């Protein structure tokens, strides 16, 4: 598994991401700068890490979504290459049009930083094969704009095609109501592209890979990726 992390001005989770990828794939990812034009040859996975690219100016992820490196990411995705966007990375994927919809301001207007339970909706993708379908995992969230919104047609298509990757829930797996931290439509925490080779999610699985810092429920996502393209 050869991976590359794209670093934008204002990214800040790239080292957490690198650690998670090293641990699960045994290889250090390449770090690429936003102004680069090409991905390293043979890249299997491109990761857009969390942070505040371009200071969240204009709209979260709007400027990063239109940088030169994103053209390379678009081509990589069109070839069927894997793309993972976490938090600001998810916002960038939506702004670049690689994923549908948009992440709006949290319904309570607050930046939310806490532990959060998620339900893994299905395990038939390169990102989740090491989880069980319906498995409840505990990871962390840290965002001000995670309120997923899209038009009715898009939401219906996402639901019908099984492209909702993760939903916010409580410890028992109950979905809806107060367990939704940000007002996200249908409690959506992450979604896939049509070909399921692009995943965008607001929570941070890369921060839950070590018992020392509160759990390892995020590790299986990276192990899934590690086993997806050996």
């Amino acid at each position, binding site marked *: 598994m050869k991976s590359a992390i794209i670093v934008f001005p204002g990214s800040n989770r790239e080292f957490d991401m690198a650690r998670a990828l090293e641990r699960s794939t045994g290889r250090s990812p390449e770090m690429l700068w936003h102004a680069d034009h090409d991905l390293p040859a043979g890249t299997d996975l491109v990761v857009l890490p969390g942070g505040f690219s371009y200071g969240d100016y*204009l*709209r979260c992820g*709007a*400027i990063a979504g*239109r940088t030169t490196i994103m053209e390379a990411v678009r081509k990589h995705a069109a070839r069927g290459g894997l793309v993972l966007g976490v938090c600001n990375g998810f916002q960038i994927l939506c*702004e670049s049009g690689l994923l*549908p*919809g*948009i992440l*709006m*301001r*949290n*319904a*309570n*207007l607050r930046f939310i930083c806490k532990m959060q339970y998620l339900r893994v909706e299905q395990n038939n993708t390169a990102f989740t094969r090491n989880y069980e379908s319906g498995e409840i995992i505990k990871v962390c969230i840290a965002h001000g704009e995670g*309120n997923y*919104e*899209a*038009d009715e047609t898009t939401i219906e298509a996402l639901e019908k095609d099984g492209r909702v990757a993760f939903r916010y829930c409580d410890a028992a797996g109950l979905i809806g109501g107060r367990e939704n931290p940000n*007002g996200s439509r249908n409690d959506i925490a992450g979604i896939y592209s049509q070909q399921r080779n692009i995943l965008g999610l607001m929570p941070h699985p890369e921060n839950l890979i070590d018992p020392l810092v509160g759990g390892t429920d995020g590790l299986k996502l990276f192990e899934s990726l590690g086993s997806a393209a050996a």
Partner: protein
Amino acid sequence: MKARIVVTLKNGVLDPQGKAIEGALEALNIKGVSNVRQGKVFDVDIFTDDSVAAKQNLQAACEKLLANTVIENYSIEI
């Protein structure tokens, strides 16, 4: 040539910031203001005298970057 671009949220899109502003206005005892919707204004200079070309140019700017047409409308004044 100068132009102004106004970007606003589409009808039906929840605007939590607008709601918060509405609440703050109420707290300041400013009465009778409702349905506050927050938007953005961009003032720009365009180096052309052709207002049709300028408008086309700015339309492209809005579609590509200034507005996210999933949730936002835009208008251009030249």
